[in-house]
């Protein structure tokens, strides 16, 4: 996915950029509203991540202007203004959603997915592996044409594994991407979710293999 990140704090911008890039997204980073307008003029984005207090203006004005231009790129506001009144005002201005700084990256991802799903999203390319067909945004998994009912965390786990088949993911890595960093969960949480995903994908030629002492990988029979 292509993100436009509008954020003036260098460290934070860099960190969000790194994190999104790490997950395989394309990101353009604008440090001012002017730069954001330039980017929007020449490229299309799936989503805009917008800060509020920027050196050349207020992100909310930019948002209103964006909406007036009937541009329908979804916008998620990243705000340090945490008061209820600010949040209500943001949604009234036309933001699709907001996260308050400091935000949990897993939550940002969840909100991004929710916004894109609600917007009908850009026609998301289906991911296929062996006899699995996976639509990450629509949250549909088919095994040989047969739809399987997966819960959110099982879907997210499959999404991570299917993005790089045969690659071994460590338990820690899966933990970091699947669960909120501040959430307290039991040590064997990942084993539990892997077990469930295996059960849900029963009958498929694709299977999740345990690489003892290292992690898991998706592989085909």
């Amino acid at each position, binding site marked *: 996915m292509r993100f436009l990140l509008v954020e003036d704090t260098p460290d934070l911008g860099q960190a*969000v950029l790194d994190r999104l890039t790490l997950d395989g997204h394309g990101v353009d980073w604008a440090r001012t509203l002017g730069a954001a307008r330039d980017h929007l003029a020449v490229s299309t984005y799936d989503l805009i991540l917008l800060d509020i207090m920027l050196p050349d203006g207020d992100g909310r004005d930019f948002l209103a202007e964006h909406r007036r231009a009937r541009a329908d790129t979804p916008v998620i506001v990243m705000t340090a203004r945490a008061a209820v009144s600010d949040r209500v005002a943001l949604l009234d201005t036309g933001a699709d*959603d907001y996260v308050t700084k400091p935000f949990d990256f897993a939550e940002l991802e969840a*909100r991004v997915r929710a916004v894109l799903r609600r917007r009908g999203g850009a026609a998301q390319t289906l991911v296929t592996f062996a006899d699995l067909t996976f639509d990450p945004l629509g949250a549909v998994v088919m095994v040989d044409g047969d739809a399987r009912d997966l819960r959110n965390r099982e879907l997210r786990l499959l999404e991570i594994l299917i993005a790089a088949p045969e690659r071994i993911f460590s338990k820690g890595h899966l933990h970091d991407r699947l669960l909120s960093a501040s959430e307290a969960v039991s040590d064997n949480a990942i084993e539990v979710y892997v077990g469930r995903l295996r059960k849900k994908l029963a009958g498929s030629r694709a299977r999740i293999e345990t690489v003892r002492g290292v992690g898991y990988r998706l592989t085909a029979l």
Partner: protein
Amino acid sequence: MTAPRRAASIRRRLLIQGVGIAALLALVLYLAVRGVAGSAIQTVQDSVLGTATVIIAEELRGGTGAVSVDIPYAAFSMLGAVGEDRVFYRIVVGGETVTGYPDLPLPDEAPGLTPAFYDATYDDTILRIGAVGRSVLVDGQRVGVTVLLGQTRTAQAAITAQMANRAAALGLGVFALAAVLALVSARAALKPVNLLAGAVERRGPQDLRPVTRAVPRELVPLVAALNGLIARLGTALDRTETFITEAAHHVRTPLATVRMQTEIALRQADDDATRASLRQVIRAVDSAARSAGQMLDHASVIHRSDRGAPAPLDVCAVLRDLAHQVRPVADMRDMDVVLDLPDAPVTLAVDRLLLESALRNLLDNALKYGHAETEITVTLTQEDGTALIAVCDRGRGLGDGGAGALTARFARGANVADVVGSGLGLTIVRDAARACGGSFEIAERTGGGTCATLHLPLG
């Protein structure tokens, strides 16, 4: 520190002045009436006495050797008509008392034909005496004759006393009436002041709107000064709020950087000890940020508590909105938010931000303390003019402390050490519910978990 000495009450001052003036006027009235009435009676009495004296004097005839005196009894009966007074007379011819009471006092100057009147003591009583002098011919010679006619003043004194009593009664009546009027007018004069004071006093502690009530011209400077003070106070509060918001922004932005960098470091760390400490850092950051946010929310809940009557609000729409907003977070823990709402809108006359603050906190709690892969149910029912909004989770419940301990500021349950929180959430809920004219309770849920219920008046 000693309290400043209180200046005399304006009302008392007005009252004392009014009553004092009334007393003075009543006294003057009394004296005037008594004086005028007394002298009028005196004049009438004197003219009767004078007439009687003149009649007697005219009956004196000269002659040979002596003066003939023929006292006309009509004169006495004329005097008797006035009252039961005793009458004395003395007729002096040429220095000798001819008839009557020889020691009846003579006037200081010889009287003429026009009667002269004077008071004199005789026989231990005070007499009013009329004196007329004339001359008659005795043996061809003019001899001066003086006629004295005295009368006690019992009747006159009685009438004067009666008149004085009436004057006193009149004076008292006027005084009483004036005193009541003074009381009424003091109260009426101070009424605008009292109304103004009442209007300002009835305001809640957060109401900083200027006073717009119409006041008499004399109070305009006072109201202007009051409004100036209110405006300065409002500006100071706004500045404080802006400062807190700015401060929060400046704290939260670097915290966001720390958190994001730590998450990246966590992604790249392999050994468990490092990962555990990085998670600790993230939890500490979340905790700091959450406290800052909740303190702001609590402040704004208190600040908004007194905004007057809010517009009617469909609580179903608010609940749908909020459920929609928290759904991505619920999804992350495979939790569902299930709404059980009536089909028709349910209208409450409550402030939207207060309601959202309360509901948002309840949903946050359910999301944090509910177990993964359970449902959060939000139910709206109506009962006796009250809307009941229940947010129920399947989670760890209230712990040993029970419900009572949780709404205190910065109080947290004994069973939640592993979850990031500020201890302000339920305080916000409670204060917001109160500010909406409602109440809030939290209880263990049958079958495990917690049910938090808001009772809000239907609008």
